[in-house]
């Protein structure tokens, strides 16, 4: 009987990882990709330490300072939570609610808009298990899974055999990759596959719509005709959209929905957001359950708006204290925005000494999901995955958030 663990490196949430220990050190990690393996192998590296104003302190002092800043804050925001379990995300949302604060995660500038359409049933969706068992056309649009989701193609989509896809990728699958350049994923396009070099995603969307209506599009006619023809050969096809699609659509989601509807008039096509962070969707769904919105939410105004996006709040100097947990905005947000984090009271809760931790006022060290803390995480196709910690630590995200919550009525 083998003990399998779940890797929290990305939204694939591979739950078939075998780990061999040597005391408290991880010696061997089987099956996980480079990023996932390193999370286990190097879990002791670059750890965060309790810090106040750049000086190392005792853990309790950091907690108390965090509590103090939160209590005194008049305009409080919570951000991140992309790598922490749903159980911890729930507590963060409770804190935001009690403080009438703002709450947001990376999905606002990442795949939130696409996830929202799926959660509101505006786009038909499926699970990766369905894709593996039934999907013929595997269409990666604006995403390079080889780099962002390394095992995606071999575990869920193009390469594995499935119930109705027993003859393998060369006969039973048709790969389509649409990207602005020939990414590593696009290099896998060989026979029974197609690479679409996209300069304007909206024109490709338009091409599909026009071709189905038997009209001549401005561009990408051959590509659209071929892909639709392939989709019609089977009764299950899937489009997985990433950041390239999200930004390429320039906010024209209605057009994309129109395209999906049109495609479903002539073939069966599902949509799955190809997310990056392990539990980004977990936050979206957890907040959605509570408020009906997936991100950029204000508990004071009881609504979601671009004004309440974390980067907008920072840009417009609307917060005095920010709790950044399980995320590294200095790494991902534009500099002009992230530099504000050094000016306000930033409390970072993170297992690692991230870039944001290096400029924060207070740093509270926490646990690494999948290694030192378990819980539930939601895969980018919406399937809930159980995560177990290799070692369970008392100090983890749930513990830290419960401690911080103590000072809120």
């Amino acid at each position, binding site marked *: 009987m083998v003990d399998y663990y779940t890797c929290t490196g990305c939204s694939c949430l591979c739950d078939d990882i075998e780990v061999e220990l040597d005391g408290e050190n991880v010696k*061997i*990690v089987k099956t996980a990709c480079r990023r996932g393996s390193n999370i286990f192998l190097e879990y002791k590296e670059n750890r965060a330490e309790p810090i106040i104003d750049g000086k190392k302190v005792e853990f309790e002092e950091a907690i108390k300072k965090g509590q103090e800043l939160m209590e005194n804050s008049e305009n409080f925001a919570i951000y991140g939570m992309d790598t922490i379990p749903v159980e911890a995300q729930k507590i963060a949302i409770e804190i935001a609610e009690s403080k009438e604060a703002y709450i947001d995660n990376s999905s606002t500038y990442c795949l939130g808009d696409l996830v929202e359409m799926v959660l509101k049933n505006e786009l038909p969706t499926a699970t990766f298990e369905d894709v593996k068992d039934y999907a013929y056309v595997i269409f990666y649009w604006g995403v390079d899974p080889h780099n962002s989701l390394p095992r995606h193609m071999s575990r869920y989509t193009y390469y594995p*055999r499935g119930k109705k896809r027993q003859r393998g990728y060369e006969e039973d699958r048709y790969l389509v990759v649409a990207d602005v350049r020939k990414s590593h994923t696009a290099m*896998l396009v060989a026979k029974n596959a197609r690479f679409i070099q996209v300069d304007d995603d909206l024109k490709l969307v338009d091409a599909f719509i026009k071709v189905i209506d038997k009209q001549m599009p401005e561009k990408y006619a051959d590509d659209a005709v071929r892909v639709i023809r392939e989709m019609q050969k089977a009764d299950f096809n899937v489009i997985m959209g990433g950041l390239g699609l999200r930004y390429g659509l320039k906010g024209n989601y209605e057009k994309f929905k129109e395209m999906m509807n049109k495609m479903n008039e002539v073939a069966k096509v599902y949509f799955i957001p190809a997310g990056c962070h392990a539990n980004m969707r977990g936050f979206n769904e957890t907040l959605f359950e509570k408020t009906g919105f997936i991100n950029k939410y204000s508990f004071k105004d009881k609504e979601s708006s671009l004004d309440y996006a974390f980067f907008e709040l920072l840009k417009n100097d609307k917060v005095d204290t920010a709790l950044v947990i399980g995320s590294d905005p200095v790494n991902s947000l534009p500099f002009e925005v992230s530099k504000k984090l050094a000016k306000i009271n930033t409390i970072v809760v993170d297992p690692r000494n991230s870039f944001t931790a290096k400029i924060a006022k207070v740093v509270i060290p926490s646990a690494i999901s999948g290694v030192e803390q378990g819980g539930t995480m939601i895969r980018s196709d919406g399937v809930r995955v159980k995560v177990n910690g290799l070692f369970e630590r008392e100090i983890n995200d749930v513990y830290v958030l419960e401690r911080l919550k103590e000072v809120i009525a």
Partner: protein
Amino acid sequence: MSFAFKLVNRERKLEECTPLFEEEKYVRQKNKLIEYLKPLEEATETGLIVKEELCVGCSNCVVVCPVHVEKDPYGCGSGLAPKTDKLILKVENGVVHVVDMDMCRRYGKDRVLCVVCRENCPTDAISFLEG
């Protein structure tokens, strides 16, 4: 030509060409050949070389291998962790490693020119000596 082909396939060793080693006049050719054949020492029996620094551990090679699909249909063949240790390739500590090259279709009497693992590696982490 036949001997040269068998040299590359490791069925013969360079030392078996006794005149090459025993006669003075062939010293230059001998040294050149030793230099040319050096990469073979690093390659496996079927001439497969793994460049770990290019591998991201995507497992494409493990899942597409026809031998793996046959031997482990519900493990590797289905994209999941292998259910057996008897495999050609495995991903361990984030990169691919060779386990048992004997099972590879490129080797042995009934060998086939199979390049599926290399073809589905977009970073050229896997390559074959024959090019």
